């Protein structure tokens, strides 16, 4: 029987309360959001926090998907299932629904949160790649106030983020522009499994050319975005050749390792194929301009 090591339990009733508890209890305290990364790790004793601060009660305060001031804003306690079912997201940022369809299973999606997923920063985590592909900015609050961090500065390598010990992730923000499209592609061994490889892409088109293209990969090393691939897209007219070229650059720039999910060579190949598909679909969506 697997059970976590003993800990002391606190239940936060608001964001301010959670932050107070983090400051009071110090670095041995961990926030518990949906618990679907932290509890499995605690059961395996890969994590044994002295204090657990349950933020389940913040689901109402931090569970929302809004469109405001040209941005989509997602509260950190928004659950996978809400991301999957949101019509607002499906229209404005379809990459989220693409990804959520293949993240874990319906039961996990009923509990796991976007904040927990991003803060866990698992190298195979899907929403980190999604957020990187759409240039998300993350709102973090701590004892010294709030700050906005770009996704590329948020992810600090496997299981590490820019969120400090006394801080908390509150919100994910993505700018919405006309002429944009996004998509996510993932290969997994079986339904609900972590990615063998996954690729997210977003594009912003203007006058028939790609003004800005973004690519982010999951499960193929710490460097999730490819600057070369993104440069190759900028200012070009979309074409299958261009997608293939950018995909090759992205695949060349990633660093997969051989493990039980496949060999490094196989993963690199899949990364190129998925990037190409994600780009093509993102451009198709940008051109069809779904009603917002």
């Amino acid at each position: 029987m697997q059970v976590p090591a003993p800990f002391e339990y606190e239940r936060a009733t608001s964001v301010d309360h959670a932050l107070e508890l983090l400051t009071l209890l110090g670095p041995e305290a961990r926030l518990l959001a949906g618990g679907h990364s932290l509890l499995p790790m605690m059961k395996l004793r890969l994590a044994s926090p002295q204090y657990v601060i349950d933020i389940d009660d913040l689901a109402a305060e931090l569970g929302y998907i809004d469109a405001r001031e040209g941005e989509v804003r997602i509260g950190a306690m928004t659950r996978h299932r809400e991301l999957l079912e949101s019509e607002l997201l499906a229209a404005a940022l379809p990459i989220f629904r693409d990804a959520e369809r293949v993240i874990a299973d319906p039961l996990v999606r009923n509990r796991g949160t976007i904040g927990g997923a991003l803060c866990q920063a698992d190298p195979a985590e899907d929403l980190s790649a999604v957020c990187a592909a759409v240039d998300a900015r993350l709102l973090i609050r701590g004892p010294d106030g709030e700050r906005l961090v770009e996704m590329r500065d948020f992810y600090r390598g496997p299981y590490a983020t820019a969120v400090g010990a006394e801080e908390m992730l509150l919100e994910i923000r993505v700018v919405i522009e006309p002429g944009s499209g996004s998509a996510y592609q993932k290969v997994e061994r079986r339904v609900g499994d972590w990615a063998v490889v996954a690729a997210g892409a977003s594009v912003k088109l203007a006058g028939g050319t790609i003004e800005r293209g973004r690519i982010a990969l999951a499960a193929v090393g710490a460097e999730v975005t490819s600057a070369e691939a993104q440069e190759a897209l900028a200012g070009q007219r979309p074409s299958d050749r261009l997608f293939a070229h950018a995909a090759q650059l992205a695949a060349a720039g990633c660093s997969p390792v051989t493990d039980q999910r496949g060999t490094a060579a196989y993963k690199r190949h899949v990364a190129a194929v998925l990037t190409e598909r994600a780009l093509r679909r993102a451009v198709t969506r940008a051109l069809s301009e779904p009603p917002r």
Partner: protein
Amino acid sequence: MNVTVSVNGHEHSRDVEPRMLLVHFLRDELGLTGTHWGCDTSNCGICAVLMDGAPVKSCTVLAATAAGHEIGTVEGLEVDGVLDPVQQGFSEMHGLQCGFCTPGMMLTARALLDRRAGGPALTDQEIREAISGQICRCTGYASIVRSIRWAAEHCNQELPG
């Protein structure tokens, strides 16, 4: 710590360690052994219970977290000796072999039917997706899908007592 959890509409208070998982609270503290417990690694879905009407893995929820939520277990499906249409469906369509996955499957089915009440007819694809987080060791998936479809079709009809 003292934890009070509402299970099938009744509140239960117990003095437990904060690390106690909901599945053990239900089985060992309340004696509700209808909730089964399998992989222990959050993968198999055998331990599914309803939390505010939505299926979750009770091996991956602290009992302490469950306080303040309404928990539903398989023991709550039958009311006054009348089986839930889902239970009836599993009986009619041979939805179980060893029965290990059955409580969780039935609860997920119940949640699906509640969610879809009044909507268009359920497709097999929707049923398959709904149970995709739960493993049947006996691999009797086809009959599980048939059982849930039976329940969907008989949901609003008088059932034999």
